[in-house]
């Protein structure tokens, strides 16, 4: 499973795209957030971050699968 990274998350996680290890079974947005926070504690210093699934904001219960486009959305600051 791959997660597109944006903004400050690329720097905090030292990569452009996060590739989760094969054996890592992650079924929901909440599980993904928890895995990220465990692996990259720095991400816990942000206000918060959201997860987008297929380019839509997803809530914690949203299921996630391999073939969806998953992105990590740090606090936005457009405008």
């Amino acid at each position, binding site marked *: 499973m791959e997660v597109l990274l944006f903004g*400050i998350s690329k720097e905090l996680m030292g990569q452009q795209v996060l590739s989760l290890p094969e054996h890592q079974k992650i079924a929901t947005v909440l599980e993904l957030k928890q895995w990220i926070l465990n692996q990259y504690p720095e991400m816990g210093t942000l206000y918060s971050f959201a997860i987008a699934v297929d380019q839509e904001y997803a809530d914690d219960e949203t299921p996630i699968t391999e073939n969806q486009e998953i992105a990590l959305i740090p606090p936005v600051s*457009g405008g």
Partner: protein
Amino acid sequence: MYSWLQDPEAGGINLFIGNVRNHAQEKAVVKLEFEGYKPMAMKEMEKLAAEAMEKWPIKKLLMVHALGSKQIGEPVVVIGTATAHRKDAFEASRFLIDELKNKVPIWKKEYFADQTVWVNAHP
């Protein structure tokens, strides 16, 4: 853009332009850089436009956001609304820029002389 917003039924045209200013948090800004999750940003902007069109009797609406490096004084975001009466144009434009800043997946990086900061990232 102004001419695009013209409409025979529109008595009020509101054009908001967000520019790069030369300071932030009392420090001199050298430049800004904007990164966007383009396909999702477009979707979110289209959702906001649709929402505004429902809330206000809008004749014409435009939303534009720059990406990449921006110098002092350069425009970054433009919101335009054309309505029969000015009240709706002001309100709709305010809604669009405020919600854009909350929802559209675009990120601003501020370059100061001695450091760079991702805006709004940390408390």
